[in-house]
């Protein structure tokens, strides 16, 4: 992991005469006084840093607020501020980073800590029927603590004006998708505003972590968002291994990357089909579904699981590949990439699908940059971000991918990037398998010392996943925070669909394909 940015941030904060203390890691963490918390964000914003995440933790009855920043090739920097005993508020970062809004609402929901200066403190994951004084991530709240329901309602942003009306959708949707609620304000068939209401898939994942050791918690991480199970497991394992001060064998790192790239291919292929299907082009959907199934079947055969769940574990991976397996994987990867190349040509020639996707749901580069949109969504609006290259975790430090970006920020651009990334992944898989190092693929995981912490990012097919972990006594996790890329990209969707006709919403929603589960945890 690349933490070069820490030094840059330290010198900027010195110039601004902000007193700080650096806790040497790995990874290093800058400790600032609570009064300086927003100031740090202000300087970070001026320097063009991206806010990766903001979260809280509790230790000995007092709370700490954490943040992670990033800046391209300089990698990442962590900052934290300890709140005094009995202090239950902190300065909000929203004036500098609007993307912090929901993260701080979650801190407010789960810890009962108030972000001062936050413009919107409606509850977010904690729905209206939950008791107000229940703060599930506080240490005195039990995992199976009872929740006494009461009546409540959520004040949506209303609409007024002649001819405008509202369409509520969900949490049970018309298709086979995850639960969430969308409130559209509409004129004619044009969307004026979309307000998302999420949290329906909240399963208490972060609380679950805290009763487990790393090996058992990895199963939870793998289920943060099932479609990105490899990437989530990998981010969790990297953070835990960093805390333990151990890296996995080169062979294990290669195998993890192969799994992650295959997961990327499968999901991109699935998305391309599904996006085209939402524009009524069933041909593409059927071809893509077929190819995706081919991938799943080989995964089952070689790794014992169609979606590659629970293969990445602390200490390595659970399955090795023999020569026959390597050959099969290489062959199929190239064959599928070849077919996707063919389908790309067909897609480009098909004027009726192009007509639907070009110009639909555009996001400006400026907006994408302000929010720090991730993955396909960011790269389709010219944001040159990719954690594989920027965080330089093994094995990508040896073979950084060619990052493709494009203009437009619309559905068409998001499709184009997916087509390109399938090819890039296929090339990476080929390279990783040809150069597969000899050696072991799994070592027993040594529990890290009490108080050690780790922070890791992994570029999932959806974008950067960030995981922060700290261990308590006996190898048990004291706190583990996960930030799925959807936490940020959901905000992008709200922006993208303004002025989009309502019937094109599914098309746009699919082109973002944010995870509900990954967001709600």
């Amino acid at each position, binding site marked *: 992991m690349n933490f070069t940015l820490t030094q840059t941030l330290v010198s900027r904060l010195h110039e601004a005469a902000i007193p700080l203390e650096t806790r040497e890691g790995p990874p290093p963490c800058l400790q600032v006084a609570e009064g300086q918390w927003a100031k740090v964000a202000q300087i970070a914003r001026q320097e063009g840093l991206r806010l990766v995440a903001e979260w809280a933790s509790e230790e000995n009855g007092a709370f700490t607020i954490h943040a992670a920043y990033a800046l391209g090739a300089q990698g990442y920097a962590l900052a934290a501020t300890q709140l005094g005993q009995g202090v239950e508020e902190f300065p909000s970062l929203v004036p500098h980073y609007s993307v912090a809004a929901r993260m701080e609402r979650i801190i407010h929901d789960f810890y009962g800590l108030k972000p001062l200066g936050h413009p919107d403190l409606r509850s977010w*994951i904690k*729905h209206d*029927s*939950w008791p107000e004084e*229940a703060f*599930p991530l506080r240490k005195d*709240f*039990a*995992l*199976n*603590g*009872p*929740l006494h329901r009461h009546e409540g309602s959520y004040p949506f942003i209303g609409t007024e004006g002649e001819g405008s009306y509202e369409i509520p959708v969900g*949490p*049970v949707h*018309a*298709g*086979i*998708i*995850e*639960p969430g609620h969308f409130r559209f304000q509409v004129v004619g068939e044009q969307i004026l505003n979309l307000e998302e209401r999420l*949290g*329906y*898939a*909240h*399963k*208490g994942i972060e*609380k*679950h972590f805290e009763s487990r050791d790393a090996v058992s918690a990895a*199963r*939870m991480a793998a*289920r*943060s*968002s*099932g*479609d990105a*199970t490899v990437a989530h497991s990998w981010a969790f394992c990297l953070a835990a291994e960093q805390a333990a001060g151990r890296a996995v064998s080169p062979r294990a790192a290669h195998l993890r990357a192969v799994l992650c790239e295959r997961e990327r291919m499968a999901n991109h292929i*699935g998305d391309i089909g599904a996006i085209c299907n939402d524009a009524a082009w069933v*041909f593409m959907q*059927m*071809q893509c*579904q*077929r190819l*995706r*199934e081919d991938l*799943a079947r080989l995964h*089952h055969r070689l790794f014992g699981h*169609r*979606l590659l*769940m629970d293969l990445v574990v602390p200490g390595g991976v659970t399955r090795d590949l023999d020569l026959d397996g390597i050959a099969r994987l290489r062959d199929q990867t190239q064959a599928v990439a070849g077919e996707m190349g*063919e*389908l790309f*040509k*067909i897609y480009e*020639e*098909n004027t009726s699908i192009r007509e639907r996707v070009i110009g639909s749901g555009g996001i400006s580069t400026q907006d994408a940059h302000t929010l720090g949109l991730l993955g396909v969504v960011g790269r389709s609006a010219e944001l040159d971000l990719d954690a594989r290259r920027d965080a330089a975790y093994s094995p990508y430090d040896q073979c950084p991918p060619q990052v493709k970006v494009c203009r437009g920020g619309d559905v068409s651009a998001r499709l184009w990037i997916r087509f390109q990334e399938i090819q890039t992944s296929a090339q990476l898989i080929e390279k990783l398998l040809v150069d597969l190092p000899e050696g072991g693929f799994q070592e027993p995981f040594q529990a890290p010392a009490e108080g050690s912490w780790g922070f890791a990012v992994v570029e999932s097919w959806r974008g950067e996943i960030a995981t922060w972990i700290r261990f308590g006594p006996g190898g048990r996790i004291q706190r583990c925070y996960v930030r799925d890329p959807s936490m940020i990209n959901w905000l992008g969707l709200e922006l993208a669909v303004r002025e989009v006709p309502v019937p094109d919403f599914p098309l746009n929603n699919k082109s973002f394909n944010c*995870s*509900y*589960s990954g967001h*709600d945890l």
Partner: protein
Amino acid sequence: MQRILRKIIKVGTVTEPLGRSEQTIEVLGSELDRVIRKRFQKSLAIRQVDAGSCNACELEIHAMNNPYYDLERFGVHFVASPRHADLLLVTGPVSRNMEVALKMTYDAVPNPKMVIAAGDCAVCGGEFGCTYATVGAVSQVIPVDVLIHGCPPTPTDLIRGILMAVGLPE
């Protein structure tokens, strides 16, 4: 257009006979229920409800519709509203935030109706169990007729479970 046709011809029909299930499928309920269920044979409308799954179960439910499995050949199709459905296919450990929505969806399905709990989470809470955030098994919230184990169940398991629900051996 030519390219599309060429591709369709080259790929041909990939649909396969249904394979064997890998996971346990349990059919609950009485003999009388089974008689009623048989009425749904060859034309079964399903409404899927995600009650807080990790979304991997949904991926496999989608896969039932891919050209290899082609669920519709068995007369089974997904509908957009519970009011059009004969059967609810429920996944996830029933998050507290979905409990009410799940009950309301069940109530909206006309009688007679069936419920399948698909995936370990829906069967028994799975990895998530019963906590402040999740109820656990779907059967804690609404009556369940068929349990399909697996994390996630494969498309074959899912199809077998659905067919067993209406009393078809395959």
